[in-house]
């Protein structure tokens, strides 16, 4: 790859020079609407909706349930996976709902979310800061970042702790304060008002990553922020605060890397591959909060702007605040809009909301409410005149119009040949297009269709494999069956001439006798049950249910016992106890399961069963009766037992059934 050497870059930085990226546009920045006023606090909304997945990766596991009271900062989900990041209660209150809710996504579809009604106290949970982070291992600090729910706040929402725990050697750590999108001033205000905290967060990251150079990049249309950061970083020789020429999209990760270092992130690669890591200033602020105060990420700065709000401003919004609450606070004036429209994010890359109930999430940096005529009002697409103004504007040196032709014609192979997936969707091409073609929209559709086709292809492939495996299995079973028949036939043929007819008769008699004896035995055993009515069966089933429940309870009890005995010195003894407990639990479960199946098995188990399992045994005895009702009851009992077992989630999960049997 076109790699510029470290020394070269440093020399250039020392000389105060930067590289440039191709293309780019200069939209009217409109930042003055909000950049002059301090970040304000807003009143508590009536409800908060916290989507459980707000980052790139998987969602955490729910840690609360409906009806729970939560305190501010209490984790609502727990991380069970490296790519899972917890979300936290933004204020104290009551969880009223966990379920699908419209989410901050261009599709406006529903995702799993937790709804909290604030109690108005805004009471913090107990916080555990890690102020002496240098004294702790990096793992511990990284874990603290993960537990604080920190993911990139600039755009994509990549989990910060994963970036910070990479093993690649990092030469440049870049703190991105470029904020190149028009209208948005959230990072600008944050740097002006909280430069020191941003610096602290940077220090934490530097401690984890140990880069050779730290660069804080700020676009030159934010002189105040630049000044503030320079003052905050003046005591550190490692940190360079660099002013970047204003050009959209200089704040894009790849573009900023190119501007600062002249290096390009290889396709299919990550910035770390070329020795660069980038963090947003907002993320740094959140890191400082998490490490020095112990506060998880529960609020962020959001720019509420546009000419259709009376008081455009920056606000500290709790994660989960519905958009309409912020609009109300900023004085939304519907008469200024011909058609209601709210953009989440900036005018170049933001997406329109389909519902005012959409919550603010960790990556929400702006709400733009345009007056009519302020942004594009109508779709006025004309034919492409191949002027290639788009190619001149493209920061990735793509050929947008070729991509457009192929995307429009659904020629996805060709679109990919023109590197469709290298498009960063910055919107510069559509911004300059004289034919007003929504180019990026076409690319997005093409990209998602290609992804869908890939998925479908993979599914079809899997279906084919499964179908073929099944066919092979059926074939095998058929052959085996035939083989069995053949053998049986052969055996019969071999046997017949060997035994005399007298023997046969004797054998038959013996068989019949044995059968009768067996039946009688059964009958005596089941004397009672044979005469039982349906009602009795029901009662038995109820008893079985109760017992099963109890057994489940015992299971958890035994687990508790086990936990308690952890403290006991005699480890072996404890293990034995645990094993016995597990075996008991398992047996209970197996008994109830096998009840409808085999009478003999039940009687066998009878002998070894513990006294508390008697009731279940009764059921199994009775189950010999061939009535349908009773079977149903048994099934219910089984289901209950299963549920009980699932609730306690203990012994059967941990050890395999065979292991128990052996022990």
């Amino acid at each position, binding site marked *: 790859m076109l790699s510029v050497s470290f020394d070269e870059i440093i020399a250039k930085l020392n000389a105060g020079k930067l590289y440039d990226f191709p293309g780019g546009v200069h939209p009217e920045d409109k930042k003055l609407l909000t950049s002059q006023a301090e970040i304000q606090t807003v009143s508590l909304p009536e409800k908060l909706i916290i989507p459980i997945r707000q980052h790139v990766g998987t969602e955490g596991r729910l840690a609360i349930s409906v009806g729970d009271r939560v305190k501010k900062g209490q984790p609502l989900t727990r991380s069970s996976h490296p790519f899972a990041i917890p979300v936290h209660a933004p204020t104290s209150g009551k969880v009223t709902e966990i379920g699908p809710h419209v989410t901050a996504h261009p599709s406006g579809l529903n995702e799993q979310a937790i709804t909290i009604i604030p109690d108005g106290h805004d009471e913090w949970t107990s916080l555990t800061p890690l102020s002496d982070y240098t004294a702790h291992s990096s793992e511990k600090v990284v874990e603290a970042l993960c537990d604080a729910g920190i993911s990139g706040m600039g755009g994509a929402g990549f989990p910060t702790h994963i970036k910070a725990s990479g093993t690649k050697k990092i030469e440049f750590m870049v703190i991105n304060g470029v904020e190149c999108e028009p209208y948005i001033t959230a990072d600008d205000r944050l740097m002006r008002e909280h430069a020191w905290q941003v610096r602290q967060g940077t220090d934490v990251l530097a401690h984890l990553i140990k880069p050779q150079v730290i660069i804080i990049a700020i676009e030159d249309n934010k002189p105040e922020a630049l000044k503030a950061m320079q003052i905050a970083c003046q005591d550190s020789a490692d940190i360079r605060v660099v002013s970047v020429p204003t050009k959209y999209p200089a704040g894009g990760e790849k573009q900023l890397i190119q501007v600062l270092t002249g290096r390009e992130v290889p396709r299919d690669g990550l910035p770390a591959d070329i020795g660069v890591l980038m963090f947003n200033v907002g993320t740094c602020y959140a890191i400082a909060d998490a490490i020095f105060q112990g506060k998880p990420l529960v609020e962020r700065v959001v720019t509420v702007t546009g000419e259709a709000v009376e008081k455009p401003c920056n606000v500290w919004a709790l994660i989960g605040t519905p958009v309409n609450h912020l609009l109300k606070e900023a004085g939304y004036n519907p008469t200024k809009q011909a058609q209601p429209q709210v953009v989440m994010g900036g005018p170049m890359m933001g997406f329109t909301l389909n519902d005012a109930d959409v919550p603010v999430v960790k990556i929400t940096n702006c709400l733009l409410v345009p007056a009519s005529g302020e942004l594009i009002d109508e779709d006025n697409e004309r034919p492409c005149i191949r002027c290639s103004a788009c190619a001149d504007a493209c920061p990735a040196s793509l050929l947008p119009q070729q991509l457009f032709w192929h995307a429009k014609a659904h020629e996805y192979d060709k679109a990919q040949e023109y590197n469709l997936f290298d498009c960063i969707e910055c919107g510069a091409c559509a911004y300059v297009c004289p034919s007003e073609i929504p180019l990026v929209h076409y690319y997005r559709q093409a990209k998602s269709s290609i992804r*869908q086709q890939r998925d479908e292809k993979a599914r*079809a492939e899997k279906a084919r494999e*499964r179908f073929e495996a099944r066919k092979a299995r059926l074939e095998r079973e058929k052959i085996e069956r035939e083989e069995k028949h053949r053998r049986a036939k052969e055996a019969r043929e071999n046997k017949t001439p060997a035994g005399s007819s007298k023997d046969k008769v004797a054998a038959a008699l013996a068989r019949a006798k044995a059968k009768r004896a067996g039946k009688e035995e059964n009958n005596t055993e089941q004397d009672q049950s044979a005469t039982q009515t349906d009602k009795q069966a029901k009662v038995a089933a109820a008893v079985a249910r109760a017992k099963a429940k109890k057994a489940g309870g015992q299971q958890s009890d035994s687990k508790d016992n086990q936990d308690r005995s952890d403290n006991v010195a005699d480890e072996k003894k404890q293990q034995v106890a645990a094993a016995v407990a597990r075996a008991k639990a398992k047996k209970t479960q197996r008994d109830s399961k096998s009840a409808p199946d085999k009478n003999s098995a039940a009687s066998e188990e009878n002998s070894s069963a513990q006294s508390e399992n008697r009731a279940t045994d009764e059921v199994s005895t009775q189950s010999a009766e061939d009535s349908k009702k009773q079977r149903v009851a048994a099934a219910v009992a089984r289901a209950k037992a299963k549920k009980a077992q699932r609730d306690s989630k203990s012994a059967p999960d941990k050890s395999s059934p065979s292991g128990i049997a052996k022990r």
Partner: protein
Amino acid sequence: MSLTVALIAIGLLALIFGLVLGYASIKFKVEGDPLVDQIDEILPQTQCGQCGYPGCRPYAEAIANGDEINKCPPGGEATIKQLADLMGVEAKPLDAAHGEEDEKKVAFIREDECIGCTKCIQACPVDAILGAAKHMHTVITDECTGCDLCVDPCPVDCIDMVPVSPTTTSWTWDFDKTPKGDIPIKMVS
């Protein structure tokens, strides 16, 4: 004399070309019938049998042997078009006798009603139903191809074909599929 030269020359040429052809036929020998594989690749692998063949591969073989290409409702127009391109024939509309193109669905077993008869398990062409005799069954949604074959065998009619609803990851930037709300405006009096 010239006649002999001509004969020898032609004979030599014939020999050379014969060798070249013979070599080529060994070197570039076509293994199996790639056409069937290519057709199979295009078919959606739902294994639904709506085409009248017991699975996608048998239908692929039938197409290779000259059957119509418009008998696959799950694949729909897109599949027909691809098949037409591959086979070099005219694309034609879907044969309604084999069913109509429908949105993607997966089977869903209402588990309370399931009696555990295993009939659907036997019907499923891709082993996407789990369960044992007299035990409740369930469908592995990810594996289900939506072929519909399990619905009929069910004696208690507890299997539904549920349309797959779009998620944020499967959404293809189609704003028409997005429910639209408004901004509730509270009149300040």
